[in-house]
């Protein structure tokens, strides 16, 4: 197994030869599924979860060691095929995989299962009589998105931890990472990797998708609401479905965090959250609410943020945009500038050339989703208590809130926002890096994949 293998598919050895060319067929998918299931039964299903953790930790370690050829290849090839710059791809994958080391994997297992060994056999559970065992799906199909390079690793880790065979469909706009990650597992343990296949097929190829779903006991999909809905509608009854669709995130700065001495570093952290993945991640903030009455006025914070966005851009340039994306930024800027000219309390702070970054300061507190690609609004907030009313119109989309304030007020804020569907309140600067055990979109990660059996005593 080597990182220089450029194929975007990763298939069982017995199939590879014949699948060399042409579009995948339903028959091929059925054959792949059969090979995966056989490999799982012969090996992965019998492997103690602790050993799976070890193997995954070592595979992830291959990516994180100094001069990793896996990371080099991914950085170079993903930057060549996606709009993202190489340095951003590398940083994104590194931060993401750091969360998939042994300690992160064990925390995830313990957080969701208590005793991870319920995956290995019947075990007592504290406070419950009898013996209990959890079984993952024989086969899980993963539909990946391409917005956050490296993200497919998390989905595959979920599948492998519950001893499921995994069939992954890479995103058309980022087909590189999934097969590369699968190969890095094979480099550590080829028998375990035999339970993983990566096969690109066209989203419109419903016969192939149907074959994959029919062979699966679970389907996990990432993408836009429309693509999630289209996958969900084709998953047969009885097959577990987990969909991660559109989400919106925001940052909130409390007045106690607006300290003249530390505002620049706070702005840097916000700029990191906005800029990483060019706001394409569900964890990327669209709006920064800044509470008034602190040591730095909200408008001055907007200036600090603009400076930090500029600095981030120098370190990690924004990706290339489509004409539509660039035009949307021009339109957002024009709209802000015109309101400024009209006398509204608006300030437009922009990159000196091009569309690299845009900070719009406006006193109108209404939540406005960004047109993405590093366009962020800063809005003053009289009181944290005003937020629920401001966020209610977009509550069905809310996900992460980055909070910079005292722990007491952060907890009160979480109390206010939890009923609106916010599933994560984290530090500013950490928004793009949720831990592996987070409540992604409000749910668990492993539990939805499991079926339980109990022996009553």
């Amino acid at each position, binding site marked *: 197994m080597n990182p220089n293998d450029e194929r975007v598919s990763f298939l069982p050895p017995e199939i590879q030869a014949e699948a060399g060319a042409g579009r995948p067929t339903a028959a091929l998918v059925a054959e792949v599924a059969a090979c995966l299931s056989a490999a799982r039964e012969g090996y992965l299903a019998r492997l103690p979860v602790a050993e799976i953790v070890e193997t995954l930790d070592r595979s992830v370690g291959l990516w994180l060691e100094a001069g990793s050829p896996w990371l080099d290849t991914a950085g170079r090839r993903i930057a060549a095929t996606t709009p993202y710059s190489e340095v951003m791809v590398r940083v994104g994958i590194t931060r993401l995989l750091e969360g998939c080391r042994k300690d992160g994997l064990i925390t995830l297992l313990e957080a969701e299962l208590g005793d991870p060994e319920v995956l290995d056999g019947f075990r007592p559970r504290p406070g419950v009589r009898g013996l209990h065992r959890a079984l993952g799906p024989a086969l899980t199909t993963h539909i990946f998105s391409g917005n956050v390079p490296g993200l497919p690793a998390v989905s595959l880790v979920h599948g492998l931890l519950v001893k499921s065979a995994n069939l992954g469909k890479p995103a058309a706009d980022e087909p590189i990472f999934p097969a590369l990650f699968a190969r890095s597992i094979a480099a550590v343990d080829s028998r375990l990797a035999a339970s993983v296949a990566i096969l690109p097929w066209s989203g419109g190829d419903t016969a192939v998708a149907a074959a994959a779903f029919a062979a699966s006991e679970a389907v996990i999909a990432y993408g*836009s609401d429309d693509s999630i809905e289209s996958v969900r509608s084709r998953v047969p009854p009885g097959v577990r479905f987990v969909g991660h669709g559109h989400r919106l995130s925001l940052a909130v700065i409390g007045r106690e965090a607006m300290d003249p001495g530390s505002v620049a570093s706070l702005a840097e952290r916000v700029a990191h959250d906005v800029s990483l993945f060019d706001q394409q991640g569900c964890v990327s903030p669209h709006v920064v609410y800044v509470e008034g009455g602190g040591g730095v006025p909200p408008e001055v914070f907007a200036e600090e943020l603009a400076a930090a966005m500029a600095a981030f851009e120098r370190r990690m340039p924004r990706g290339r945009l489509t004409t*539509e994306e660039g035009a949307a930024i021009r339109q957002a800027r024009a709209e802000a500038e015109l309101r400024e000219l009209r006398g509204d309390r608006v300030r437009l702070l922009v990159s000196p050339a091009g569309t690299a970054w845009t900070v719009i300061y406006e006193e109108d507190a209404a939540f406005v989703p960004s047109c993405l690609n590093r366009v962020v609004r800063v809005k003053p907030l009289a009181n944290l208590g005003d937020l629920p009313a401001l966020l209610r119109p977009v509550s069905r989309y809310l996900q992460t809130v980055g909070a910079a304030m005292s722990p007491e007020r952060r907890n009160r804020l979480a109390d206010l926002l939890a009923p609106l569907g916010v599933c994560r309140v984290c530090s500013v600067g950490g928004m793009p890096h949720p831990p592996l055990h987070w409540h992604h979109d409000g749910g668990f990660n492993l539990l939805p994949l499991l079926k339980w059996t109990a022996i009553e005593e």
Partner: protein
Amino acid sequence: MAASEGIEDLRTAILEMIGKGPDQPRDDEAFNALALRMFAYQFQTNEPYGKFCERRERTPDAVRSWLEIPPVPIAAFKELTLACGPVEQAVACFMTSGTTNPEKRGRHYHFTLDVYDASARTFFKANVLPDVDRMHLLVLGSPPDLMPHSSLSHYLWVVCCGFGAGGSMYYIGKDGLEAERLMADLRAAEQAAQPACVLGASFAFVHVLELCEQRGLRFHLPAGSRVMDTGGFKGRSREVPQEALYRLIGEHLGVPADRCINMYGMTELSMQCYDSPLRRRSLGHREVRAMEAPPWARTIILDPETLAVAPEGERGIICHYDLATCSSVVGILTEDLGVATPEGFQFMGRVGGAESRGCSVSVDEMLAATEKAPA
């Protein structure tokens, strides 16, 4: 800075340019000279526009080429009053349809319609009636008394007065499409010896063609007949790609695609662009679909990243400089995407098609989701 000249001189100059006709040589020097005169006037008399230019450090003293004149995003016509005079004195105020937000409609004030009308008449004639002086016009539109703020309504009125033969009629009244009268008149036009021209908004054609389909009606308008459609669909009928629309027009009206003319106009402008096979044939040009601006206007495509003129063949934002728009601003930045071609430009849809690549939500996706959700 010297005081700029008055509007009267500028009107005289642009009318003179329009008077040289649709086929005058594209004199870039003359265009540039008049554009700079207009800019100086508009900079001084259109206060919000003046501020807009000052922010960019583009003042009449600094600007040497029409390409340096700052184009105004069309959203400005909604947010600001962009007029070179007191709006109480305007003889017409054309307003955008406000499909996205009825509270916010773009306004284009006219202090005389002489220039608008001359511009409209001259280029309409060249594109729609290059071969005849008058024709029986069947207008799928409303007369201006029903829609006093519609620039399309005024435009149709101007061409109807200028070029309509006896029997020319409007078919959209206060209760909508007058289908029975239209069907009867189309049947009569079929029998007439003279060709006819059906013209109006593209979405109106869709309704008419659907009606023909439902009733199983096919008309065979006389040889030489033609169709001119304009504008998007804006949710008022189902979206139909141009090719499909022209195929349906061929089937139901008997007008072949090479006699179908597409007009591109905007409330914020005083000129229209055309994609006219008839004009191309009359000039002996090669037959490629492309929009052409009149000689008193220039359409350029801007790279959204740099706002520099995009190379031919590359998509970008459509930007117009229209010297006939003398009393607001000559340069406007549209919300349309297009591509420059050797023959002119092609319209490629509205900006706003931007989609997130994954699980974040862009404004447009959210608007779309809100629209889909039950009220």
